[in-house]
């Protein structure tokens, strides 16, 4: 187990944080738009968990980067433009309908659960601590989304169609999650990261179970989009950021 370079370690933390932040932000866009009141509470809850996870990771990343980089957690969130964001493409997609939102959540949480679980054994004790809490939260997110997919898949004809459409439309964003590039490999080998190729089989098992129970088709192999972890995003992210960052950009350096 080699020593992980500081900038690789920072980059690895940023990827995790960005993915959770952006998905949490997407959840917050649901405010006032949920199909039932109970879901308003649940979606906000998920959003809060994800933003909380992101915040802990950003703060740790700031500590890791040390004096070379004097940005704080809010600077990382509000002052980076799209190409510097390293989140997975899956989570930056616009919310779409409730089916798209729930399928996106299920795809991500089915990935996040084993990732956090593995990270509880990170050599970085701070990350291990964050992962312990986050794993429990992700398990709840996964269960919640899966229950909805079951209801929608095995509900009415319309809901079945909508959730199947969502599964098919989002499928091409899932391949990227398991991609072991240099940063992920280095982080894994140094005991900071996760072997994502190993996570894939668990993810496929979970997803297959959920879809089968919901009478939905498991998509065939198809072409997979990637780029998020290296800052090559979809056109969606820029618009999310222009909204999210407005105040910090318009009134730089102020206290809120």
């Amino acid at each position: 187990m080699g020593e992980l370079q500081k900038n690789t370690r920072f980059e690895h933390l940023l990827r995790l944080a960005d993915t959770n932040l952006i998905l949490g932000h997407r959840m917050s866009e649901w405010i006032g738009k949920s199909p039932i009141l109970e879901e308003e509470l649940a979606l906000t809850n998920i959003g809060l968990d994800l933003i909380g996870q992101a915040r802990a990771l950003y703060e740790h990343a700031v500590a890791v980067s040390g004096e070379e980089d004097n940005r704080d957690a809010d600077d990382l969130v509000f002052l980076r433009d799209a190409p510097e964001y390293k989140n997975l493409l899956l989570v930056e997609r616009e919310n779409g309908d409730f089916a798209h939102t729930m399928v996106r959540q299920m795809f991500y949480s089915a990935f996040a659960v084993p990732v956090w679980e593995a990270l509880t054994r990170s050599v970085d004790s701070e990350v291990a601590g964050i992962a312990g809490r986050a794993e429990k939260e992700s398990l709840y997110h996964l269960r919640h989304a899966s229950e909805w997919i079951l209801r929608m898949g095995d509900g009415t004809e319309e809901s079945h169609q909508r959730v199947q459409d969502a599964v098919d439309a989002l499928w091409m964003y899932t391949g990227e999650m398991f991609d072991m590039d240099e940063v992920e490999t280095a982080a894994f080998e140094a005991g900071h990261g996760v072997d994502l190729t190993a996570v894939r089989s668990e993810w496929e098992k979970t997803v297959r179970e959920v879809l089968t129970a919901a009478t939905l088709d498991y998509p065939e192999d198809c072409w997979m989009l990637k780029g998020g972890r290296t800052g090559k995003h979809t056109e969606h992210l820029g618009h999310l950021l222009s909204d999210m960052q407005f105040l910090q950009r318009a009134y730089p350096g102020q206290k809120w």
Partner: protein
Amino acid sequence: DPQERAFQERIDAGGKIEPKDWMPDGYRKTLIRQIGQHAHSEIVGQLPEGNWITRAPTLERKAILLAKVQDEAGHGLYLYCAAETLGVTRDQMTRDLLSGKMKYSSIFNYPTLTWADMGAVGWLVDGAAIMNQVPLQRTSYGPYARAMVRICKEESFHQRQGFDIMMKMAKGTPEQKRMAQDALNRFWYPSLMMFGPSDAESVHSAQSMAWKIKMNSNDELRQKFVDLTAPQADYLGLTIPDENLKWNEEKGGYDFSEPDWDEFFDVLKGNGPCSVERLEDRNRAWDEGRWVREAMLAHADKKRAAKLAAE
């Protein structure tokens, strides 16, 4: 009517009315209206704050605001549950909200135009709401009183958070201070209106007071609110937009100007700056959620049928 007399005596003695108890029709109807309206206000009240959640300026502010708006949805739930104990369904109340038949607090028909409005809403709007709600913890209807206990605990927390935003802005850069003052200017009179028109003009007031579903007069609460808020504005270094505001030693409270009651009745009629949009937004959410609710019911039916078949 001896039944009615007994009912009133029980209330006078400080007793609680519970869902299965006998109650006069008027009591039931007034309560449904009042609790329903309160519940709707929590739900519609999410929208003006929702407008700034995606633009919250720091991670911490974002989390706090999200949690607050989540609390409001929770309050809506408690209150709908309390109203349901009176024999009306949440769906029916929702439909009455969406058709414009039932009202919600007019304050939410004003737009939130800068981040300082998140401060003003917390400080003034939640502040006024608490003023109304604290006495309602002692209201005669049990489920309502108990919902109020839970709600008040969270509201005072929200009010402090709003004040904190306001403080950061008022003590911030000149631009921020300007935004804070502007927010106060826009929200001051609408907040005063939240207590309703002067009791002289208020319908239903006397009966509601006797039934203890209204605990204080509108003017009384408004005075209390001004007395509490004016020094807070001072502390913030902000100016309440009322030339007549000044301490009256004799009455032990502030003198202040009445809000523009024509505007109040106008907004009540649906002529608020955001009245149309708020109802449109709620209707859109309801309409776009229809297929989800149908799926939920269809799935529950299937499960029930499968369970029955298995027995």
